[in-house]
């Protein structure tokens, strides 16, 4: 990767962050919606900590914080996909294709923006959590690990959103993935301990990569950081990222072959 490529990725990433802050409809799903759901679920299902088998925590918020962060990064990936599809619909991508820059730098620029937004959302939830009494067992190093995993999650989920945007070129289709985000979340241990899930969700959550990622983010808060949990989270992120990049690459090639 050349210095020019890095400059292109940086410029497109910065554009993507600015674009999100200028359009509240893109920012709201990343920050507002998960914050509201976090507040309601924490107060509404807070007694869950008294269930036999619930891991020892100071409060339900300690447990839920990682779920809110991962929900935010999934929605950031979706929003990034919508913004990329809008760029395709408006012809901005065509202009980039005509410019003397790396084709894949266009996609990586968008993903860099999504990762940056995820990091900002992670900081937002960390601050909210600390204000409302979350205790991070692993202290500052734990918080750094959480932010690292949240940022990488944005990058990984952004790849899936970008692949759908490049394949379809339609914002409405990417927007249609919104309910799917919740399906994936509900079939993981994002909001409740895996052992206490009921029905098919209990089985699927055991194999859902999202469960491993969310447990990697949660571990420093409610217990102690272990290499095993961290390793599984990183491996899951690499898997999701590889799938997203492979699909994006195929979709981009097809788009160029078909004439933009």
């Amino acid at each position, binding site marked *: 990767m050349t210095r020019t490529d890095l400059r292109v990725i940086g410029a497109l990433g910065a554009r993507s962050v600015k674009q999100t802050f200028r359009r509240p*409809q893109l920012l*709201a799903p990343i920050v507002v*919606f998960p914050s*509201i*759901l976090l*507040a*309601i*679920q*924490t*107060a*509404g*299902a*807070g*007694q*869950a900590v*008294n*269930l*036999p088998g619930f891991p020892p925590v100071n409060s339900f918020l300690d447990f839920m914080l990682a779920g809110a962060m991962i929900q935010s990064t999934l929605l950031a990936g979706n929003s990034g996909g919508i913004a990329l599809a809008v760029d395709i619909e408006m012809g901005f991508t065509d202009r980039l294709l005509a410019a003397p820059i790396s084709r894949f730098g266009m996609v990586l620029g968008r993903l860099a923006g999504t990762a940056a937004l995820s990091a900002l959302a992670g900081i937002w939830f960390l601050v909210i959590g600390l204000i409302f009494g979350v205790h991070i067992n692993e202290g500052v190093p734990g918080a750094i690990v959480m932010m690292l995993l949240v940022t990488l999650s944005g990058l990984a989920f952004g790849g899936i959103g970008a692949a759908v945007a490049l394949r379809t070129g339609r914002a409405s289709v990417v927007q*249609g993935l919104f*309910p799917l985000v*919740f*399906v994936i*979340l*509900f*079939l993981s241990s994002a*909001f*409740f301990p895996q052992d*206490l*899930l*009921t*029905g*098919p*969700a*209990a089985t699927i959550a055991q194999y859902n990569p999202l469960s491993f990622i969310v447990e990697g983010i949660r571990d420093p808060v409610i217990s102690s950081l272990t290499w095993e949990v961290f390793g599984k989270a990183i491996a899951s992120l690499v898997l999701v990222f590889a799938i997203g990049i492979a699909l994006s690459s195929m979709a981009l090639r097809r788009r160029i072959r078909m004439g933009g």
Partner: protein
Amino acid sequence: MGWAQSLDATWALIRRAANEILRVPGAAIPGVLAPTIFFLGLTSVFGALSHLPGFPAPFKDWMIPVSLLQGAGFTGAATGVNLARDIEQGWFDRLLVSPAPRPVILAGLVLSAALRSLIPATFLLAVGFAIGVNWPGLDGLLIALLVVMGFGTVAACWGTMLALRYRSQSAAPLMQAGMLLLVLTTTAYAPLSFLTGWLYTVAKYNPVTQILEAARQGFIGSVTWSDTWPGLLCLAGLLALLSALALRGMRRTAV
């Protein structure tokens, strides 16, 4: 305009909304799918809550009325989004210069939402009964459906009010989020005594709590008048308030 003509005009607007469902069936899918996904998802995730001592019913019985109201809320909000689209495209201006009085136009819009809200409700109930939700009895089912239609009308008034205020489809998230918040800040997840912190206070005074309890009673126990009338009263109150505000917005709308 006489009563008969007013009824004809209202019916024509209801038929137009129904035509939309037949011509663009895909548009109704998100409104049906979203509450179903939330119902199945939340039941799987928080189902163990019903093992807490004192929890009054299996969690799926507890949640189904919440999802019914969510479905009605989304459907009602969709009426607002459709109106915003009609405003953007100029169709609503043509409606305003017609001899139909403003209350008739509003009635046509919101009553269509009442009927449309039965679509997600039917789908949800079918899914719910298939996974073992308790049969609420005919009386419980009728009350639940009446509440769903009423809440769909309330949501449509809210959506109409916002559509007339912002005159743009970009207000759609506000229309949907407003209703979602109203439903979730109640005894949606657990009985009042199980709620903690701010949600306990908000749920206690949120009128939708009474509406939800009226719809829920048949699914978790027997139907009683004492559980029904507070819900119907709150529904009537919300309907009166929001329809008055929507009508005010419509009267202020100049062509």
